[in-house]
């Protein structure tokens, strides 16, 4: 994939966010182009998750701007960011464990479901149609990840193993067909083998969704090397390097700050 020439899908300019005296993000410029997979790496506390939280509206930036698909979404509410087409997963699993797998995925489908009172309470026939359609779509999406999991939609999410919970969380993010997917350390708490499996799933799902852009935070360099087109490295809230994995892993500053033991 050569460098695209059109305007980036996501463009953060001079993004700054402080927590008290701590500068979590320090004038970070960050872009993701349509169809790219961008790796976001850096040591713990370097601002990766904060970048996600600022982009998705959980925190407002102190300075700088965020544009998505040509529209300004700086300091937009999380709800508006989601509606614009950005979906995310969380570093620590954030699922509704007592609810069914299907319910969990439907939470992610919020913007495509009718929440009107009359529709939900009185027009039960129309509701049933929407339910069956969503159910079909969900089965198909989950089946891309795992056929057995697709047969377990009516089980409580609490009964799933960690890797299946991660799959469900990614399905929850994908069901609304976002243009940009933000994955916050999807391999956390999983074995090497499981991580490999999950990455295969993600790549497979992406093949079915043309033009889906992904930004992934990850500590497993094998994963980053395998799936990303480009990487951005943060340290102490600043961007210290950017480029292909080969380029950034050859970067002296990156080696010192993060990769360590520079052979």
């Amino acid at each position, binding site marked *: 994939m050569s460098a695209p020439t059109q305007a980036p899908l996501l463009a953060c300019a001079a993004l700054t966010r402080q927590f008290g005296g701590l500068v979590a993000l320090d004038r970070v410029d960050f872009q993701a182009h349509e169809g790219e997979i961008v790796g976001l790496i850096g040591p713990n506390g370097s601002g990766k998750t904060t970048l996600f939280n600022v982009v*998705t509206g*959980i925190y407002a930036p102190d300075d700088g701007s965020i544009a998505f698909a040509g529209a300004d979404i700086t300091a937009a*509410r*999380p*709800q508006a*960011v*989601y*509606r614009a087409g950005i*979906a*995310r997963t*969380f570093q620590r699993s*954030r*699922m*509704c*464990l*007592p*609810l*069914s797998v299907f*319910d969990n995925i*439907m*939470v*992610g489908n*919020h*913007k495509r*479901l*009718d*929440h009107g*009172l009359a529709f*939900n*309470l009185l027009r*039960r026939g129309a*509701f*049933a149609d929407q*339910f*069956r359609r969503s*159910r*079909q779509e969900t*089965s198909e999406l989950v089946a891309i990840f795992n*056929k*057995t999991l*697709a*047969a377990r*939609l*009516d089980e*409580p999410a609490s009964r799933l193993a960690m890797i299946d919970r991660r799959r469900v969380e990614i399905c*929850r993010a994908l069901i*609304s067909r976002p243009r940009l997917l933000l994955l916050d350390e999807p391999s956390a708490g999983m074995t090497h083998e499981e991580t490999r499996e999950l990455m295969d799933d993600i790549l497979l799902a992406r093949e079915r969704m043309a033009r889906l852009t992904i930004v992934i935070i990850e500590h497993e360099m094998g994963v980053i090397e395998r799936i990303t087109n480009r990487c951005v490295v943060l340290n102490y809230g600043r961007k210290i390097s950017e480029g292909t994995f080969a380029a950034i892993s050859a970067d002296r500053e990156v080696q010192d700050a993060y990769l360590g033991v520079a052979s």
Partner: protein
Amino acid sequence: MSATTKPPSRLPALGCAAAAALYGILFLHAESQLAVGALLVAAAAGLALAARFGLVARARDSIGAHQPTFDAAAVIGVLAAAIVLRQQHFAILMMTTAMLLMVAALGLTVQFGFAGVVNFAGSAFLGIGCYTAAVVTRYTDLPAILSLPLGGLVAAAIGSILILPMLRTRGHYAALVTIAFGILFKTFLEVNDTLGGPQGMQVKPIVAFGWNFGRPFRAWDFSASFYFSYLLLALALLAFAFVLVRRLERSWIGLSLDAIRLDEVASACYGLDIARWKVFAFTLGNFLAGCAGAVYGHVLGFIAPNNFTFADSLVLVSIVLLGGIGNVWGVAVAAVFVVMLPEKLQMIQEYRFALYAVLVILILLFRPEGLLPRPLRDYLPGWTPKTPGAGA
């Protein structure tokens, strides 16, 4: 899961409703403490035996598979019990009270069970309904039956005062806001002369279409207690509230409320408007409590601030906790339990609040999801996915 499993028969569901109605009649009819005690022991033994032989599971499957049948059977069961006991004022009054508390507890279920909005002022909202009924019959010429929707609307409107502080606080602090409101409400009633002060107010009976609810019930050759009309009204209100809350649960709205209760941050990141749904659940719950309160006011005939104490709010909360948080049938079972047990077992009457407290503690310790834990959401009962699952 083989494709050959037979759908469960509807007999266990019907048997369940019939047994409950029969037991209710016997229990309400029993006079001596010995008979009441024997009936309680019989119920416990019967349930234990039924569980031992798998009858409870069969009844549950059958009820799940034939919900409309069971709903209809439940209504017929209540009517049958009421007709058998028609001349016994006290029994009819207790049934009516239990059904009205069920409606209020269904309101709490929407607030607390679904959206996670705590409300420790349930009896205040019930009281707003009662006082609305009193004001309508005393100070206005409006037909008294209008106090039913008005009670709900006034409760919802007064509840909106609490919305701002409730949205800004969380957890224990939100609970404190509602406790403060409940106490404020009672104090306000005590000092307000228009509302009768500490002595309270009379609530005149409903007279609608020439039918006086306060007179003994008489239709053709059938005559019954003067509470009988209110029992029918309470049953109608309960059926409405029950269908409303159950449909709500089985909809995208119910899902949104659950998601907000379980994880606000993730919900916000998937577009759910937290404030909007909390306000919706809180208002709807207060509306139901207010409607129930309006009827309750007419039933009591005389209301005073002391009917709406913090302890009464706790009783409503304990109905929800005992029954199974978020389970509509659980609320029904627990309300019957909480209303009837102390009235029939006079030796515990004085200690009833202590009894509720012990029950709630025991439930929270040994069965934290309540007597009837809430099942997973079943959007369309009876619907099964067509696509063959893996492993076929």
